[in-house]
């Protein structure tokens, strides 16, 4: 097992490209996107609504990387937390990697 950091970022759909660009600058290249149906937070209730161009919809961006890269990525995201309305969770995970002979 290899120790890694997993970042889960809930972001408004139109802002996803910004997150992807920032992740690449930080050296994060692999990620997975999850659709969401809706939810509720400080700003009220939101629902997945594709008709309005996804402006009110959110998407979950998940990436697993080495601790150093994850920290670098988090540093670039911290100033945007409020402006972009991001919700970020960080967890330590064990990853089973294929052995390269």
């Amino acid at each position, binding site marked *: 097992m290899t120790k890694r950091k997993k970042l889960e970022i809930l972001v*408004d*759909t*139109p*802002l996803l*490209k*910004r997150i992807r660009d920032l992740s690449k600058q930080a050296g994060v290249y692999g990620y997975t996107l999850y659709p969401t149906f809706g939810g509720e937070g400080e*700003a*009220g*209730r*939101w*629902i*997945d*609504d*594709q*008709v*309005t*161009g*996804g*402006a*009110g919809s959110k998407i979950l961006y998940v990436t697993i990387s080495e601790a150093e890269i994850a920290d670098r990525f988090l540093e670039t995201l911290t100033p*945007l937390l409020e*402006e*972009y*309305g991001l919700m970020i969770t960080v967890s330590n995970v064990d990853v089973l990697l294929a052995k390269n002979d």
Partner: protein
Amino acid sequence: MDVLFSPVILFFVLGALAAFARSDLSIPEPLSKALSLYLMCAIGLKGGILVADNGFTWEMVLAAAAGLLLSLLIPIMAFAVLRSFGKLDRINAAAVAAHYGSVSVVTFITGNQILTSMDMAPAGYMIAVLALMETPAIIVGLYLARQGNNSDVQQKGDLFRETVLNGSVVLLTGSFIIGLIIGKEGFEPVAPVFQTGFTGLLCLFLLDMGLLAARRLRNAQTLTFRLVSLGIAFPIFNGLLGSIIGASLGFDAGTTTALALLAASASYIAVPAAIRLALPKADAGLYLAMSLAITFPFNIVVGIPLFTSISIFMVQLWL
């Protein structure tokens, strides 16, 4: 009054009532998206075919110029009122103003369908005017937001893609051009899909829009009495302006009503995503609630019959 008993309006009201009553009625999101694509495709084709049939005219150039003028003027006027009477800060006022300068495709499609059923079909080129009016207001809105503080506006290359190459603009313009190329004869094989089922599918889509608008209103947290008033006052003033301009340019009553509806409507398809990207500090809940939960239902239920009557009167006045 007959307009209010049109099936498309009644389905919209049904959706809104169901949402207010907290019914679990819902249209699956992918179906809703597919319906909106179908409607934009069908209306674009229809406009292109009508223009191919009637040819290019000076009226068309005048309508495009009038549409452009309205989409540049409306956000500037709206911004001033939102700042003073609406008590909004600069970024939020600019974001909301951009929505009112742009147009609502669904309001236009619904109005177009009702006018056609009343033998007052607007000129086909109004579809091109609709596509033309989608984006200029976003640029005006961003300019207004930038005044005094550049750091609040995110100016990146992908904003161009989000505005000019927005899916709805591409589909409307693209299907309009396809309609121009294929003409009436080329349309016949696809007419069963794009013409026969059009009104029925519009009913289904408006049912969903009724649900969406009412749910958005129920969840709106930042709407004040002043902003709700403006959400109704803007379409009345802008629609009247569109009606006066259309009649003074010599358009028929149907085309004048279409221009009035374009001026009166606020975008909730193309603009919200672009504004969320360009002005992340603006409150998305606020501009979506004003355009989708206040102005859109007002235009569907009150605006369409109101601007039809005003336009008929204005056209007679100018004759």
